[in-house]
């Protein structure tokens, strides 16, 4: 192990060994090492963030903890930027990515996705006094996005007239929106809804954009053993309505009763509509 810790569990990046093979670890190797290395967001409340005490928390984290518990190991978190999610897997910096990772074709070529545990579409949040309610309104305007998100890909492909202002990190993107550096911000609708609820003066003018997508855990390409384990786990957890519980613990405090959990949560890996 190399490197000191900044006191948060999320910095496993600096706690893990600094060099290893880029080949994924087997289930046995994970169990033997006693820890599951998971990539999560550290600035995307309420899905993956650092709370006031400096601890990782959120919907993804709740799942990660359970996954590790059922494996009989501890979790080691690595915080990632959206754009780094594929590379942390290909270079074997983590075993699993649980960072609101939307399943797309491009990504599926590089990593293996397990069964989904959430569903999303894109949403657009904008200031209340100049709301954006349709994509056409964005023509010639500046849209803030985070690099490496599905929102980026969607707007690059479908809205060539929108000026994109891209940040490495969600936190920077939100700050930019607060400081009025762009006309709107787009990312997963779950995410913008949550954010608009807790930030006065902002509204989600577009709640559903593009295809409905799913969010799933991802492992390194070809790591079938771990993939199968996670798939089994998701099916098993579906029987106990685990993700609804997760929702109650982490998302409900934010969304309150305005949202229907079934719009977000996927149980047992089965998207029902």
């Amino acid at each position, binding site marked *: 192990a190399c*490197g000191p810790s900044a006191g948060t569990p999320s910095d496993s990046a600096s706690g893990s060994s*600094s060099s290893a093979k880029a080949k994924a670890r087997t289930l046995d190797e994970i169990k033997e090492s006693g820890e599951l290395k998971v990539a999560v967001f550290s600035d995307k409340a309420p899905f993956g963030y650092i709370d006031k005490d400096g601890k990782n928390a959120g919907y993804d984290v709740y799942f990660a903890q359970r996954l590790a518990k059922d494996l009989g190991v501890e979790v080691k978190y690595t915080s990632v930027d959206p754009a780094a999610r594929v590379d942390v897997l290909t270079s074997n910096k983590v075993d699993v990515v649980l960072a609101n990772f939307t399943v797309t074709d491009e990504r599926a070529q590089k990593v293996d996705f397990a069964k989904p545990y959430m569903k999303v579409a894109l949403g657009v949040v904008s200031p209340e006094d100049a709301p954006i309610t349709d994509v056409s309104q964005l023509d010639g305007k500046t849209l803030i996005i985070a690099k490496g998100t599905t929102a980026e890909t969607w707007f690059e492909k479908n809205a060539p007239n929108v000026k994109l202002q891209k940040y490495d990190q969600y*936190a920077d993107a939100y700050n930019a929106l607060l400081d009025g550096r762009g006309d709107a911000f787009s990312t997963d609708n779950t995410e913008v809804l949550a954010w608009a609820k807790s*930030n006065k003066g902002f509204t989600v003018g577009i709640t559903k954009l593009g295809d409905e997508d799913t969010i799933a855990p991802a492992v390194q390409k070809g790591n079938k053993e771990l993939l199968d384990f996670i798939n089994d786990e998701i099916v098993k957890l579906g029987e106990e309505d685990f993700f609804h519980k997760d929702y109650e613990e982490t998302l409900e405090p934010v969304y309150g009763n305005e949202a229907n959990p079934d719009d977000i949560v996927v149980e047992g890996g089965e998207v029902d509509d």
Partner: protein
Amino acid sequence: MSGADILLQPGVLPRLLQGLWVTVWIAAVSVGACIPVGLLVGWLMTLRNPVVRFLMRIYLDFIRIMPQLALLFLAYYGFARWFDWNLDATGACVLVFILWGGAELGDLVRGALQSIPEIQSESAYVLGLSDWQSFVHVILPQALRRLLPASVNLATRIVKTTSLAVLLGVVEVIKVGQQIIDANRFQYPNGTLWIYGVIFFMYFIVCWPLSIVARRLEKRWAND
């Protein structure tokens, strides 16, 4: 201003300090490891062997012309694939700082060794000192003196450059600051100003003494 209270929140300053510690740790490890690398590189650069010279030139010029951030990206994303060698973000930072610092220090070492007048080693030869004695007792001590001020400056630059680690996702002082800003956004909307202000100041407090030391050394040894 109300926002300043964010600094008094329990845990905020300690966490920032812990973040700073990560920063300083990366810098310290890198600087420490740079020293042997730099001495070796410097020595290699004084050799007359054309192949060694050419290789060192390429190494030095490439490292010098690439922005450190680009080097960090190469190490973090590139190395794992090219050499099937996996580095975490901290490891990549340390590796880059060692390669970069080693090259810079190597050039300083070369300059220092070559700046020692030939007559010094000639005097040692005439007095009967062996080559090794002459190097250890005469050349090296003088080279180190000329080297030290610039090396301390290099250390300052390495500390400053550790700030780039945040862009690879290392949880160091800047990242901790961003997490704090994020977690306290509603109570302290002005948090960015204060937290970034404090981080700014923290870097200054780490680097400034080094600059002063470098300047002192330079003055003291300039006229010897």
